């Protein structure tokens, strides 16, 4: 809880979005943007590692032998759609439609869970064919980069569930509005990261 100089910036101003009316919430949204900057560097480092190690298959399976176009296309479509539904949730929040907001959040969570399920089954398929993290540097880098993204998405699902609970318990106010907005930022960010995984890992991988 920050101590703003003016705790309430614009209580009655209908033109200001709900999440931007208290200085506390403004600070937190700002802080979250900076957190995303750190996470961006984190993923950037993992991407760099992947690009350096992608050719080091040590006689094991390579990218083009592993990746299957239908699977990763489905994953991509599902995650992109979940980003859209998450945007719809924020849109409905700004229209103060509590019910629709919760509905779209639930849809987002379900799509996210489907994505995680697909990714897990992809990983298990690889592992049963002997393509484990221990097989080669390429596979270590692959599982770490894509798995880190998957853990982020899983955390996002748990986080959204907690926010859904809070919405149900306290209704829509500036605090819950800020939380919905911030988890939305997080979700869209993960979507952006996936776009890079899609291009750098999968597309260039099968093209090789």
């Amino acid at each position, binding site marked *: 809880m*920050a*101590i703003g100089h003016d705790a309430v910036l614009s209580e009655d101003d209908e033109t200001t979005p709900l999440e931007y009316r208290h200085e506390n919430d403004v*600070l937190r949204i700002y802080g979250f943007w900076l957190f995303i900057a750190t996470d961006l560097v984190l993923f950037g480092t993992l991407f760099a590692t992947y690009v350096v190690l992608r050719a*080091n298959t040590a006689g094991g399976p390579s990218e083009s032998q592993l990746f299957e176009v239908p699977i990763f296309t489905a994953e991509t479509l599902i995650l992109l759609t979940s980003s859209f539904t998450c945007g719809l949730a924020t849109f409905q929040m700004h229209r103060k439609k509590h019910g629709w907001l919760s509905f779209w959040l639930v849809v987002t969570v379900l799509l996210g869970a489907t994505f995680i399920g697909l990714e897990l089954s992809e990983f298990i398929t690889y592992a049963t064919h002997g393509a484990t993290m221990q097989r080669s540097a390429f596979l270590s880098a692959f599982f770490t980069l894509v798995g880190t993204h998957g853990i982020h998405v899983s955390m996002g699902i748990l986080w959204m569930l907690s926010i859904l609970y809070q919405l149900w318990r306290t209704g829509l106010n500036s605090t819950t509005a800020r939380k919905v907005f911030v988890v939305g930022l997080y979700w869209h960010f993960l979507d952006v990261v996936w776009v890079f995984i899609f291009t750098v890992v999968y597309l260039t991988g099968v093209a090789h």
Partner: protein
Amino acid sequence: MPGYDRHHPTPFFVSGDPMIYASDVLIALTLVGVVFVLTYFRRWRWLWEEWITTVDHKKIGIMYLLAALAMMFRGGVDSELMRTQLAFPNNHFLGAEHYDQIFTTHGTIMILFMAMPLIFAMMNIAVPLQIGARDVAFPYLNAISFWLFFFGAMLFNLSFVIGGSPDAGWVSYPPLTETPFDPGPGENFYLLALQISGIGSIATGINFLVTILKMRAPGMTLMRMPLFPWSVLSASVLIIFAFPALTIALALLLLDRLAGAHFFTMLQGGNPMMYVNLFWVWGHPEVYIVVLPAFGIFSEVFATFSRKRVFGYTSMVASLMTIAVISYFVWAHHFFTMGAGPGVNSFFAIASMCVGIPTGVKVFNWLFTMFKGRIRTSLPMLWAIGFIPNFAIGGATGIMLAAAPGDYQYHNSYFLIAHFHQVLIGGVVYGMLAGMYYWWPKMFGFILDERIGRWAFWLFNIGFYVCFMPQYQLGFMGMTRRVYIYPADMGWSTLNLISTVGAYLMGIAFVLIVVEILYSAVWGVRDTTGDPWDGRTLEWSLPSPAPHYNFAHVPVVTERDAWWGQKEARKKGEIQKETRPFQPIHMPRNSGRPFIMSLCFFIGGFGLVFEWYPLALVGLVGILTSLLMRSVERDTDYYIPVEEIQHIESNLGRA
């Protein structure tokens, strides 16, 4: 090497060395002593309510400071042990394995558990007060940062008596640090302790960047802000963009060690140089993360004790930000000998030399600040003046090392050791000690004793040169770092002995500083005005120590050196007394959860160190539960009523 067996199964408790047993006894006695004192004086509740659960930036700063001084003691003892071993040729005071562990813990502790918390101490103590804020942007997160650092440091130090210390250098390069070459929990302690405290550091970077950008007092534009917050701003940007690289480097090495991955191994396509690159992508900005706040402190100290505005404010800001940017383009100068080729090495060599330009601007600005000023050589100023020749020598040897062809000669020699101690001690430690003396009265309400302080300064300063000047020469004579023993006919004996004498002098100086603190707590001059140094910035407008809400009225700033301006105006009778009525002040509630959550990190980390996955899982569940409980918590803040502010302010003689 005799008596050196890496494949011996590691016992849980480290055994076999009388010094370790002595430490076990001392640790046990200290713990018993602490428990006894707290119980006897009935201070457990006080400890919990006033300190462990606090979210007040001033108290968190004090805890950082005390922890950093304790870590300086530990790292200092390590260095004295190393210098004792090296004092004579063919010495057998320490064995090879023990020496490996000690240079590893010395470096790691001094950078990550001494320098980092010391800058966080100064940031916490001074930044909100200097920018006219009532706390940092996220006080609860600030407490989490501190406790993550604290438990990270505890986990690291635990390795000394449980499991065994890491022994592959503070940089922990693979493939030496991979399991086949370095089994046992030592390296795991290193990786997890740094990971845990690193999370706290990232949070601190975010916290202070938001604080400085968003919470300045009305009228304090960025270019009216004192230089210390400016330096913290640049350091925060560096933390945000550099620390994630360390997070990844440590995580990948941990995956190699625990999960059998092949990022940095010699088999299955791993690439050890990838770690070296990732480490220094963080490691070089890290050097500036610790030194830029020291530059900020020097700017405050030179201006205050010369009774002048700092010379070239705009160029000071520009040079801080320039150094921050360049620091991302120099990392490969730590391994010119990797063989990246002349093109790459030239780029990094030239970028490294470029750092000298903005740094030179700063040094000249400090000198010009003193020029025609009315200089007082109080203790903070003494350390600041001592810094300048130190840093000039460190900078010159830095340029020598930055010349890539020359570096092939100096690489990993004692010349390098002398250089980075010159800039890290001469820059960071001198800066932080200057800051400690400068803000001590603001923290505790008394001034540190001048006489003992002068003895400490001169012993330290002389000891510093005696210790490190011979090491430059030893480097030229071919002595490489991390050797634990050398024969008598190398011609290194005299210089090594001199260096050891210097190290002891610095050790005595540290003890004197501790004596000075204890002496001054009882007999020190009390600071009744809140402005003992005739300061220039807003923290000196407050009583010492400041009330927990800092400013009863948020100041309105109209110029740089806001407090100096107010004092000048008051002398001319231009300023009326404060007439604004008190308003209730919005404050965060204390919380025990940052402590408990960090304890869960410690438990989980300890489980991973020994690969006890059920324990690690317990830690993880604890962390997630703490996060969730915070998310659904609603009673997080309160208002201080006007009557209470009135009461506190009139007791302080301010209303």
